[in-house]
């Protein structure tokens, strides 16, 4: 057992456990907080896998932005702080089938792969550093990258239209 193995076991257990809690907890706010734990554990695993930049971006975007947005949404929809009993719907057949399929898939993967990992192309700052990734991004992924910016613009514009403030309260709103 090397350090990496121990880390994998520990982080994996945390990620799966926290993921299960997200799906099962009756507290809306706690679900969000468990999600943070799960995403944090995943960021740790990215570090173990030498994807340094991905790990930090994961912390920034997911833990820093996405989950905060989700928690804001929880607050704005005035969700109860305590446990709420109406979060689940009877889905035992789906649960069983899904869980069986997932375990089967995982077992299949463990059984199927006899890979050896190859070392990543090395940059001056390590394989997963910002410089190397930036080069890769603009060498073969220029178009998807630009389209991504268009996607963000579309999402922003759309979200603003849908949630524009209720200006109708003033007289100016009537003219609009």
């Amino acid at each position, binding site marked *: 057992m090397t350090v990496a193995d121990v880390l994998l076991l520990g982080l994996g257990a945390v990620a799966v456990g926290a*993921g299960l809690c*997200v*799906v099962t907890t009756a507290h809306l706010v706690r679900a969000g907080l468990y999600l943070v734990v799960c995403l944090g554990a995943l960021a740790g695993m990215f570090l173990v896998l030498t994807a340094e930049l991905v790990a930090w971006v*994961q912390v920034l975007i997911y833990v820093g932005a996405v989950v905060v947005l989700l928690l804001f949404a929880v607050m704005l929809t005035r*969700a109860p702080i305590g446990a709420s009993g109406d979060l689940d719907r009877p889905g035992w057949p789906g649960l069983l089938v899904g869980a069986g399929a997932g375990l089967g898939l*995982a077992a299949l993967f463990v059984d199927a792969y006899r890979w050896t990992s190859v*070392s990543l192309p090395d940059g001056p700052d390590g*394989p997963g550093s910002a410089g190397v990734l930036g080069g890769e991004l603009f060498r073969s992924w220029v178009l998807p990258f630009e389209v991504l910016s268009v996607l963000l613009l579309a999402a922003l514009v759309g979200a603003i239209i849908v949630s524009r403030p209720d200006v109708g309260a003033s007289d100016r709103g009537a003219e609009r």
Partner: protein
Amino acid sequence: MPGPEHYVALSALLFTIGAVGVLVRRNAIVLFMCIELMLNAANLALVTFARLHGDLNGQVMAFFVMVVAAAEVVVGLAIIMLIFRTRRSASVDDSNLLKY
């Protein structure tokens, strides 16, 4: 001795947890968290495969997925907030004007 295949198995597990979660929960925001779990499971598999193939493209793709997820969150929460403002509930099953 855990190897890379265990990362992929872990990602398959997380993906399944998310996918089953969408089926068994009712609150739109929780459904949303489950979808985020699915996307993150995909990211873990991407980074693992990048390591296995000795190819950085997997890591680059993980960025793309994160940005797409962020855009999806913006749109999704806007729509959920919208329906909450007009309906005062974020439960998916409460929206049933269309069910008949």
